[in-house]
């Protein structure tokens, strides 16, 4: 069962919401509706589901309705229409008290400009959520300290927010959200106010934390790099509507329409980056020296599903799969040639990342980078995404 299920969720700001909704359904644009009724379309019939432990990124240009959508999820903004279900309970029709309990126990929010209480210390800020629940002083202090420890601010408990740098303040924001151990984290452009280096640190840190905590995270951003780095799935918004939902790869490879394509094109690195820049050193076995035993060992050591096979002078011969190798061993075969496969995709060093998308999409094994018949490197799916998200610096191009 999804943790969050949003169906047909709309928000129209203004007085004549009925009329605006009707015009919207008739296909009028956001601007036309504003002109005709004076109403602003915030979110237009959004539907999606978010699974437990997923990082769901909502991306879009300024004014596309991201903040509105995330605030509909905890009903900081009242929906005009539609449902928001959290663990099967519908927030949209819930009474105030139940809503408060959901906010206290199930979801926390991290804000773009941190929204820390300036007159409260770091610890007191972190305790806020527990304090309003009426948790005892010792218990909330303990939990808040744990949360601060988690974000690396254990020794700053008595400082005031104004004494901390932006990155540290947002860690407090994160700790405050984590302190009441919610199921769902709502993060509205949580890192947008930070400068690029700190921002990258925070993204990494969030991913590390996420590995430990396995929360369900709704992350808002207007930045494709950020979306690619941290999203398990990405939803793209335009003028209040969700225009595409998919994995980072799907969004990059198959943009649903021109809007998405434009967005993705901004990552023009995909044209600049070449195979050479993002390839990794391949794990190989030597067909002249090694048999199934060595191949299996290396496959196991590295946690692979297949391994490439070369000769003494690194000429690419093919690859063998883990299953084939272990079968061969059982049958006592000693030559890799018998189980060698050769249907791996080959590209040269100059192939652009953009072209790689299509090739890698339907390949079961990594793409090989070959020069004069010699294996120079391999490219796995993850390194394309990582390369795009990381800018130009890429790990492991030492082939």
């Amino acid at each position, binding site marked *: 069962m999804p943790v969050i299920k949003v169906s047909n969720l709309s928000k129209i700001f203004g007085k004549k919401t009925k009329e605006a909704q009707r015009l919207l359904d008739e296909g009028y644009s956001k601007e036309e509706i504003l002109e005709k009724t004076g109403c602003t379309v915030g979110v237009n019939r959004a539907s999606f589901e978010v699974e437990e432990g997923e990082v769901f990124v909502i991306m879009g240009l300024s004014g596309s309705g991201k903040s509105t959508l995330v*605030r509909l999820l*905890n009903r*900081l903004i009242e929906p005009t229409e539609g449902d928001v279900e959290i663990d099967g309970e519908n927030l949209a029709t819930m009474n105030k008290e139940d809503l*408060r*309990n*959901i*906010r*206290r126990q199930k*979801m*926390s*929010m991290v*804000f*773009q*400009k941190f*929204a820390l*209480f*300036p*007159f409260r210390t770091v610890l007191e800020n972190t305790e*806020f*959520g527990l*304090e*309003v*629940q009426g948790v005892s002083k010792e218990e909330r202090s303990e939990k808040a300290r744990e949360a601060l420890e988690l974000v690396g601010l254990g020794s700053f408990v008595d400082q005031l927010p104004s004494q901390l740098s932006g990155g540290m303040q947002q860690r407090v924001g994160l700790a*405050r959200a984590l302190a*009441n151990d919610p199921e769902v984290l*709502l993060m509205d452009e949580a890192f947008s106010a930070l400068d690029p280096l700190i921002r990258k640190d925070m993204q990494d840190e969030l991913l590390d934390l996420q590995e430990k905590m396995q929360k369900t995270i709704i992350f808002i951003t207007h930045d494709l790099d950020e979306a690619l780095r941290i999203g398990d799935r990405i939803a793209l918004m335009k003028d209040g509507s969700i225009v595409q939902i998919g994995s980072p790869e799907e969004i990059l490879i198959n943009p649903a329409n021109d809007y998405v394509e434009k967005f993705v094109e901004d990552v023009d690195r995909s044209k600049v980056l070449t195979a050479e820049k993002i390839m990794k050193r391949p794990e190989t076995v030597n067909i002249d020296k090694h048999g199934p035993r060595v191949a299996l060992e290396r496959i196991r050591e590295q946690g692979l599903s297949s391994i490439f096979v070369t000769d003494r002078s690194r000429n690419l011969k093919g690859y063998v799969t883990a299953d084939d190798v272990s079968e061969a061993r059982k049958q006592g075969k000693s030559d890799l040639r018998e189980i060698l496969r050769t249907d791996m995709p080959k590209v040269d060093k100059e192939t652009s990342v953009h072209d790689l998308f299509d090739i890698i999409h339907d390949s079961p094994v990594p793409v090989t980078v070959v020069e004069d018949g010699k294996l120079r490197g391999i490219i796995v799916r993850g390194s394309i995404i990582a390369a795009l998200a990381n800018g130009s610096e890429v790990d492991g191009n030492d082939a």
Partner: protein
Amino acid sequence: MMLSMTKFTLLSFITSMEEFFGNTIPVAEGVDRFVEWITETFNWFFDPVKNDFGNLIENFAELLASLPASIVILLAVVLAYFLSGRRFALPVFTLVGLLFIYNQQLWEQLMFTFTLVLVASFISVIVGIPVGILMSKSSLAEAIIKPILDFMQTMPAFVYLIPAVVFFGIGMVPGVFASFIFATPPVVRFTNLGIRQVSKELVEASDAFGATGKQKLFKVELPMAKTTIMAGINQTVMLSLSMVVIASMIGAPGLGRDVLSALQRAQEGPGFVAGLSIVILAIIIDRITQNLNKGKA
């Protein structure tokens, strides 16, 4: 034909206008009757306020006046020292100023004036802050209360001195009442402003963590608005101090009475001394309340 018709209607219009403006609408009588009605209906309230509350304030003022001046001055200087962040300007000014007033034989009057200001400001604040909160929470309340505040601040004081006397007789109590009317608006306005100024994100943060309305008010909004509210309180205190001369016209004892009697007898010297004493008190109270704000903000 057309022309004479127009002439006719115009003429009759003018005569009816004259008739209308010739007869005064009985606003004054209406107010008279209204005040009379209030006095009779709310007697159960005015009487005890006039007597019991009046006695209480006067006793308090007399108690203050009966304390040895040296001790009161010492306390004031110590308070000024600590509240001004252990600097010397304010305590020295307090010491010299109060000694001067004592030397001019105005000490007892000073204690009465101080009591009047203290009581009036206190009532203004405990009424004003909740009203300000109400205003900040409801735009309807704001729309209703704002013009009332304008009315209270711009209506000449002499106008409500009359009902003040009718309701509360003469003495300290009508003085407090007049001062309340005049001095309450700033604390109401500033409380409203302070709460409305709290950033939207902070309000959202407190909502998002599931704070109740009350928790939001006490844990977020009031602490955030504190500096602004304190500025309002400072103004309220200053305004109520500026009412002491007017309050003395309806029998409130204190420095105001000396100013008033000097005015009536055209004695520049004593008038100046009493006036100067009010200014000294004003400066001391102003700086102390301002520092109260800075100290904890």
